[in-house]
């Protein structure tokens, strides 16, 4: 990314970016936003549209997904990346939420999620995901995002250890615990 000193660059390109307005409204002196600031920021930006605003836990997850410097917060560049990803997911979700109910039905979710994973998901894998993220067979946008973030992170970790590309990975105990705790 081209931006240095997120939030501190005087007269930089960053300040003309409309996203920068949302970001700087909540970022402090350090030019970084924490989970609750992210929640506030996303709510005000209206990215959720008519969907309910993101829960704090989902915001924490989103930060951990993009937090490259392990600061538990996002700089502006990371925020921009998040924005793009979120918009993509929102479009996917909305395309399946045909009745505008704010929730997607289990069956439709399968199609939506299947396109995210790098591997083919079998019916059993989809069942696992559905059980975990849906309530009464339906999933809200917030849970959908939570599901996508976790699936993305877990899949990336798995792929890193599937060196022979056979769909099998080896984990040492310590590694397994750390990877899972990091999510």
């Amino acid at each position, binding site marked *: 990314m081209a931006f240095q000193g997120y939030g501190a660059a005087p007269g930089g390109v960053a300040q003309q970016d409309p996203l920068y307005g949302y970001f700087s409204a909540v970022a402090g002196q350090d030019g970084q936003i924490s989970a609750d600031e992210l929640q506030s920021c996303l709510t005000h930006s209206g990215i959720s549209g008519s969907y309910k605003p993101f829960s704090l836990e989902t915001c924490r997850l989103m930060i951990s997904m993009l937090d490259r410097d392990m600061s538990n917060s996002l700089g502006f560049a990371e925020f921009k990346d998040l924005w793009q990803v979120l918009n993509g997911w929102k479009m996917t979700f909305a395309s399946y939420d045909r009745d505008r109910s704010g929730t997607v039905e289990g069956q439709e979710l399968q199609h939506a999620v299947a396109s995210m994973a790098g591997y083919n998901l079998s019916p059993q894998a989809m069942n*696992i995901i559905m059980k975990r993220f849906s309530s009464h067979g339906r999933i809200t946008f917030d849970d959908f995002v939570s599901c996508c973030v976790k699936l993305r992170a*877990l899949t990336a970790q798995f792929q890193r250890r599937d060196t022979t590309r056979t769909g*099998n990975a080896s*984990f040492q*105990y*310590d590694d*397994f615990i750390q990877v*899972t*705790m990091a999510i």
Partner: protein
Amino acid sequence: MAYHSPYRAPPHINAPPDQSFLWNIFQRVDKDRSGVISDSELQQALSNGTWTPFNPVTVRSIISMFDRENKGGVNFNEFAGVWKYITDWQNIFRNYDRDNSGFIDKNELKQALTGFGEQQSYRLSDQFYCTLIEKFDRQRKGQVAFDDFIQCCIVLQRLTDVFRRYDTDQDGWIQVSYEQYLSMVFNIV
């Protein structure tokens, strides 16, 4: 796995409490007198020593462990198990909070999690204890309070149990397919 489960606590520490004692407690906690203690009622009755509400995630974990009927709470019979479970954890916590600070720091956590009977191949790296505290410490003190300590141990126990199920030769390594991996982890995170 090398950490304390309350079920390994020596029996003499907790003689079974008598029924009327437990019933008194139950009635006090069951504020709406429904005969079932809900998550919020249990949360209000528990203290984590920080003057902030007891971790609701921990409350949910505990209730779901003893709620045999999936009713979202525990009746008097199930409550006996809850009471013992929490008392055992209190003992463990007090035992490892060596400086009596009311919090368990990184070193005390390491002691608590690598107690006796540790398997060589199931060690956690030193640096990892920082990660654990970072993840579970809701007070942002760099140490874990009682409720967060329980939650940490519960999650670690679940992950270790599921890992062990796949580590058939007990060498600390597993090889899993993508789907097995998802099913292992998604049930817990």
